[in-house]
């Protein structure tokens, strides 16, 4: 997983609440066998509308999504996170995220930032008025900054430490290699094996 310390980029205002995982990535995309290539499926239904915010030329290359409350409800599919990342988003800001989506996002290095709706409103206004406005998401100082806005955010220490160091769950677990080996050495011989190795 790529480390996340600080990111600055242009932002997309998504003025919708309750964006569920089916809207983020429709079910028929789940038959794919890779973690990449989901960018075209991101918000697929809405993207058919040329006036949808993501389709506007001034939003091309934006990397921060500023969404309405209850973002990511619905199924547990990790594909929703992959689709956002494949499209190029590094961070999503909302006043409330669905639990499973949030867990999945942090596991995959997509920073989900919870800010009060009032601040989200301010960000919306700013980036709607000036599509070139840059938003900085700073995980070291736990702050979101943009012109005229400085907003602190919370993130639990464990998740923050993992993101800052780019440690995915697997690398963290592998730091406990000695514990795993010790456990393995003590397993009884009657435990089942699928093959002889």
């Amino acid at each position, binding site marked *: 997983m790529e480390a996340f310390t600080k990111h600055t980029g242009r932002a997309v205002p998504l003025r919708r609440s309750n964006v569920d995982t089916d809207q983020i990535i429709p079910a028929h995309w789940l038959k794919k*066998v890779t973690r990449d290539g989901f960018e075209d499926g991101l918000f697929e239904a809405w993207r058919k509308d040329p006036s949808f915010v993501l389709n506007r030329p001034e939003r091309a290359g934006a990397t921060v999504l500023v969404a309405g409350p209850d973002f990511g409800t619905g199924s547990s599919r990790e594909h929703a996170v992959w689709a956002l990342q494949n499209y190029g988003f590094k961070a999503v800001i909302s006043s409330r995220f669905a639990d499973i989506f949030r867990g999945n996002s942090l*596991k995959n290095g997509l920073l989900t930032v919870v800010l009060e709706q009032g601040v989200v409103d301010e960000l919306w206004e700013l980036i709607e008025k000036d599509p070139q406005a840059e938003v900085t998401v700073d995980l070291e100082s736990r702050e979101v900054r943009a012109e005229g806005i400085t907003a602190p955010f919370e993130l639990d220490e464990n998740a923050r430490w993992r993101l800052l160091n780019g440690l995915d769950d*697997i690398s963290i677990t592998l730091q*406990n290699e000695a514990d*795993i080996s010790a456990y393995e050495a003590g397993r009884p011989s009657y435990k*089942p094996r699928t093959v002889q190795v």
Partner: protein
Amino acid sequence: MGRTLAEKVWDDHVVRRAEGEPDLLFIDLHLLHEVTSPQAFDGLRQAGRPVRRLDLTIATEDHNTPTLDIDKPIADPVSRAQLETLRKNCAEFGVRLHSLGDVEQGVVHVVGPQLGLTQPGTTVVCGDSHTSTHGAFGALAFGIGTSQVEHVLATQTLPLARPKTMAITVDGELPEDVTAKDLILAIITKIGTGGGQGYILEYRGSAIEKLSMEARMTICNMSIEAGARAGMIAPDETTFAYIEGRDHAPKGEDWDAAVAYWKTLRSDDDAVFDAEVVIDAASLAPFVTWGTNPGQGAPLSAAVPDPASYEDASERLAAEKALEYMGLTAGQPLRDIRVDTVFVGSCTNGRIEDLRAAASIVEGRKVADGVRMLVVPGSARVGLQAVSEGLDLVFKEAGAEWRHAGCSMCLGMNPDQLAPGERSASTSNRNFEGRQGKGGRTHLVSPQVAAATAVLGHLASPADLSDADVRTPAGVR
């Protein structure tokens, strides 16, 4: 203070415990199939990691496999690509795989127990929610997401927070024709599809102890439909007898040591559960679902409920929507509901006892005119066993279709699907909208009810059949 069964198995697998962190648990058995594994293998490849314990890992093909013409190339390109990806990944990483056509191929949750790999006191995971099935052996077994699949492949462990425990005690005798399926459907209707959320369920009591291993698997399989993390049943002589002699069962001294350990795996008398539910087995009857989630069920003798009778507003709305989708009206007797299709199979009810039960009911009878009955063994081996007992002939003579093993119409990822508006009586586990095919309507039932329904053409139990149904030509009822 004593410990529950779940706590004992949990504690025996803690690799590392530290303040403020989830426990790191060792995984004894990792089952793989084609749908949820490709991105996990991809992740390993990108990070240059091997599979840590090939000897604790096994894969099979089930969700996408066709049940007809299995020797021909798979028609659907997407299904074919998923299966080919699994084959490529298993070959590259060295994972044991049972492919379509192999005698050990089948639904992943039928294959594990049948090989003797699922054993008491083990931790079992799979990228599939019905992994709870394996809890019937006193294993701690649960479904995981794709990132976790990769985590287990790479480390053979998982960081997990310990769930709470709930005892579901079922005492007394199940009445005739009332099966494990009816019992679990009744439990889910009682506690709701969210009732088990955050819990590991332990099914116990005299009615559970009397169940066969296969019936216990049916119960644990559907724990997830109550929202639970897992379901478990303490191992006993029935469990040991089922495992003994299977391919991967412990042998010789190992067997004795294993049984000695397995006998310790029961909740202590003074163990405290976080929640408890008590059910009287004698009060149960054949049970069917009328709605679009497994908690919307009722005894077969009842009528479709009136949504207005629900006090809870969201339940009322859910019932209204369900009736609309299902094309049913409040007050309609459940027995009057006519079906187009009967599906016997899945990891809930696709084992040999289920096939025997269904066969014993259709034997000498005919599937009703206009009804299609699909019988899909849970694994190739179950299919072979059924053939050796002549069950395939019983089904075929009755006018049913005898198919090859796989998930099949349980979720319709292969060509076995309901057409829009079609109605099924199905021995599977989910009656969600569109689960068995776009617009399809599903009633969850036991194999016995499925078979009687096939003969009469409407939802029915074996008690509704008379001797007159025997040898009645198709079309005459």
